[in-house]
């Protein structure tokens, strides 16, 4: 899971930071199933060790998006 997320991050790393984070977030939303997203969100909540910076931020954004959607 961490490896997969990092691979996505490495592709978007060629873009400016905000664009890259948005790209990773969008990718996780569009292609990762709920259980996988929940797992990575939980992993980040535990510190997210080993996650690429862009993936880490994207998951955070995913989490806040999900929280906003719940509200």
């Amino acid at each position, binding site marked *: 899971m961490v490896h997969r997320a990092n691979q996505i991050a490495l*592709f978007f*790393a060629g873009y400016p930071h905000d664009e890259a984070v948005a790209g990773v977030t969008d990718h996780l939303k569009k292609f990762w199933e709920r259980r996988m997203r929940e797992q990575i969100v939980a992993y980040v909540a535990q510190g997210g060790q080993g996650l690429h910076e862009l993936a880490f931020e994207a998951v955070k954004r995913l989490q806040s998006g999900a929280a906003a959607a719940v509200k």
Partner: protein
Amino acid sequence: MALIQEIDYGTPARMAETLVTLEIDGRPVTVPRGTSVMRAAVDAGIPVPKLCATDNMEAFGSCRLCLVEIEGRRGTPASCTTLAEPGMQVRTQTPRIARLRRGVMELYISDHPLDCLTCAANGDCELQDMAGVVGLREVRYGYEGKNHLQAPKDESNPYFTFEASKCIVCSRCVRACEEVQGTFALTIQGRGFDSKVASGPTNFLDSECVSCGACVQACPTATLMDKTVIAKGQPEHSVVTTCAYCGVGCAFKAEMQGGEVVRMMPYKDGKANHGHSCVKGRFAWGYATHKDRITKPMIRAKITDAWREVTWEEAINYAAGEFKRIQAKYGRDSVGGITSSRCTNEETYLVQKLIRAAFGNNNVDTCARVCHSPTGYGLKTTFGTSAGTQDFDSVDDSDVIMVIGANPTDAHPVFASRMKKRLREGAHLIVVDPRRIDLVKSPHVHADYHLPLLPGANVAVINAMAHVIVTEGLVDEGFVRERCDAEAFEQWRKFIAEERNSPEATEPFTAVPAADLRAAARLFATGGNGAIYYGLGVTEHSQGSTMVMGMANLAMLTGNLGKRGVGVNPLRGQNNVQGACDMGSFPHEFSGYRHVSDEGARKLFQDAWQVPLQDEPGLRISNMLDAACEGTFKGMYIEGEDIVQSDPNTQHVTAGMGAMECVVVQDLFLNETASYAHVFFPGSSFLEKDGTFTNAERRISRVRKAIPPVAGMADWEITQALSNALGYPMNYRHPSEIMAEIARLTPSFAGVTYEKIDELGSIQWPCNAQAPEGTPVMHIGGFVRGKGRFMITEFVPTEERTTGRFPLILTTGRILTQYNVGAQTARTQNNVWHAEDLLEIHPFDAENRGIREGDRVSLTSRAGETTLHARISERVQPGVVYTTFHHGFTGANVVTTEFEDWATGCPEYKVTAVQVSLARKMSEWQEHYLETRKQTTQIESALSGQILTGAAGD
């Protein structure tokens, strides 16, 4: 239904805009300039007798039967080699011509066996026909003189015979091999009376012949003859259908005697193949009636139990009951399904509909996941649609052809013949491949540049090519300015111009000489129409999607889009990869590539299907297996796919499969995946059902039922019955009704109907109000997404690296005579050519390991070990080994790893770090495989209750 007999115009059609009008036997006829008198005569309804002429090859003028008289000209010119001219007055029948023709026939027949009544070609012999046409009544020379009647018969080829005594040396077979197939395996040996067709020093089987069947098809006598026709006799009716092998999608006539196939003949009106074929489609169809076919539904409570044959009703109700039980216990998302590129569009559509509507989740995937999913992602991102840009005919206008990570002569042979023809006409060729594939150097074809990169370095190579074009000022600035997103281009231009992307900087890890790469890039940018053709050597990498975008960048950069002769062209592996993707079988999108979160699209489907649909993506194949190992995914419906053999890291796949409580496999045979199944639904072959396939050029072609389903139900009927048993009603009466629903719900298919396909022969999507007859070339005048989008394609090396323990790189591929997991071809006589998967290893690496030709070797990676026999070959570079994955026992995927494309999860089959060493016995996995197969094929006899091991074959 009758036997379809296509008109033979004698010489090829010409496309000239200038027309000429002439008179033949008093009838005026107008034809394009360059047309032969023979063809013009057929156009005028006047067939001219002929033997050496046929319309899929150039005129030869040797048989002297097609002689005509032309007003104002001396002699009797051959009508095949004489071009029609304005005002020409031609007579095809005069006493002089009749006398000459009869004399010619008399000579032919004087050295020909007179066994017409017992000859296999009786009723389908042009020599016999011509003897009748010219009114031959006697042979004045007798039959006692020197002749060829005792010439030996060559029966070495498993599919056809060569009976030299019947040969009239018209050279049609030799020319078919050269002009149509492009193999140059045949020749005329000797001179004068000693002239004979020769396939090499020994026989057909040991020659360069690729058994495409072009020579057999071209033969006007019984010299080259299908063994099935010899055995069964002439067919009496034909059913036009589409081949079930590769993504070329050749049209065939299934030639029948009642309910039995006698022969598969390529259909001249087929727009993908224009009457050509390969050894698989033409000859390897015997699997459809192979003794291993399962013809009764079966169930078993545990995968270690023997199978029990049951009725369709019991099997379907059992499967439905199990899926319902699992969902009640583990939740709605605990089940899913996989469809296949071997299924028709209608079947695939129905499977994804069942999963979304009856299971109520989006856990549907297709085997395109493991081959061309990066194509969909990459081309949609850059161009706006998930498909190749051209039709196959487009290659006729290409000036520079770049083949990347594909081996068309083995994997897409009919299109390869087309490509080779264009290359013989003078187009340039660049091959980017770690292995020296046949196209690099074969008769009358050679690559201007072969860039033998290291596996895994694709993106670095494509970036370096773009770097050369940008930094040397070779960009098609007008195209980019007019057609592409300016901001994205400028961002990309800065990236690509960086020195680290140059050929010199990348050479150390691509292994491609910088000078060659620069020259190839210049050729592609300046050589005229540049077309890219690619295969799984592009997609099956951790950067598969990035590479697809890199190629799209290159095509936009050089203005090679939106016209004939150019484009980015995926060569799809299986017959319906494109269709499977189009039909919404990926977990994140509905048919027509609309994301499940798209409210408008979802509402459309919800309204049509009358059921709420999930708005989030479901699990991909690999995710399903992960979830199965984790215990949250418990049931799977698999139609036409053998994931245990074809998916990477077999041990992980089988762990997932073994952890499920209900696996339903629908297939022709008890495949490797069936070893882990609880329910087996016997499926139907392409000969047994109606539907459509969509080939690599987006061409939708009909599959037509030639014989009834051997197990009683077509695949779409099985899916429908399962859906009904699950409680979601489906009531289609024919696949045409499924297509009508697809058209209603899918904008790019809006204009597609069975009636229209029948009328046009085939249709390339998009087919809608804007393009009522389909779209051969896409992105003319503008991209589907509006402006083309350059994507930054940073090279990220795969994490699969060689080490001291695993110092070699394994890459995998296909061979001409076998297909994919071998379910079909390995049950045919194609095994004569390729009975097992072999490991190609460079002499240097072999010598270092003490390996000799034919030795059994162990192939080991961090994932697993298998054994196979070695073939020492300089086709691979030192440090690289290669094998195919056609045979279950080899288990090539036992050694491939879990690494996958970052965007789509397509496995990285093409790069695995391995070690190779001499082996004395099979691997542990192979021993386990043989034991499992024994178990899988145990079927309890319904009559005696006895367990019959191997009853279903292997």
